[in-house]
């Protein structure tokens, strides 16, 4: 794909506007910044918040996996929970 072309350089084909646009798009996805006034947040802060957010999400996945592992242990083959799971898939 053409993206390999500008891997090493500082992306000469990309305008500042594009980057501003993408950064603002990212901003709207972050849970914290959405509440603040959108004009005054710098790109650096957005990137930092994004990294923190991703790290938090990874951690939540880990915690949920552990919780599910514990819950899975307590399910018997024919219990109603297994029926619930099966009905969710069908």
């Amino acid at each position, binding site marked *: 794909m053409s*993206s*390999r072309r*500008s*891997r*090493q350089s*500082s*992306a000469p084909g*990309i305008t500042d506007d*594009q*980057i501003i646009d*993408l*950064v603002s*798009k*990212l901003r709207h*996805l*972050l849970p914290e910044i959405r509440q603040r006034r959108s004009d005054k947040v710098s790109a*650096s802060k957005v*990137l*930092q918040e*994004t*990294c923190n*957010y*991703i*790290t938090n*999400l*990874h951690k*939540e*996945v*880990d915690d*949920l*996996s*552990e*919780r*599910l*592992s*514990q*819950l*899975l*242990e307590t*399910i018997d*083959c024919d219990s109603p*929970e*297994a029926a*619930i*799971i*099966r009905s*969710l*898939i069908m």
Partner: protein
Amino acid sequence: MASKHTIATRHAQGIRARFASRFLRSLLRVRRSSNRFGGSQSNDEGIGKRIRTDRIKIAAYAAMARAVGPRRTWSRALLFKLRNRARIHGVSRKRCLVSEKKRVTRNKVVAISREPSRADTLRKLVPGGDSMDTCVLLEETAHYIKCLATQVTVMQSIADRLLL
């Protein structure tokens, strides 16, 4: 005429449903395989639980990557990494570490004489981020965050439902 918002919501619901069904199927598989090895052995319980937790976590990421499909760079990178891990895991742990290190040095970008920017931190967090330029990185990050949040929500609701 469907607005951009409705198309996006429909798209999001599609991913959510695809991820949920794949993940639930993997969960049942994990439960079946862990039951087979006997859950009543007390000294194996701690290790078995950790293995099960790891399997569930990998199943979650794999289910999400497959639900997204190969049309995103991050999902392709994640699927590639998971397939390599599955392939190497059967052989040996040590060899796995060596080959991972080799892969990292090969993909390393030319050293820049400034401190690592926040974009570089982001590259490490998003799968496949090392080979993206900044514009693509930001786009992929946005999509990755959306899918990760969906993954967390679905896992949460499954856990809540199992508790009732």
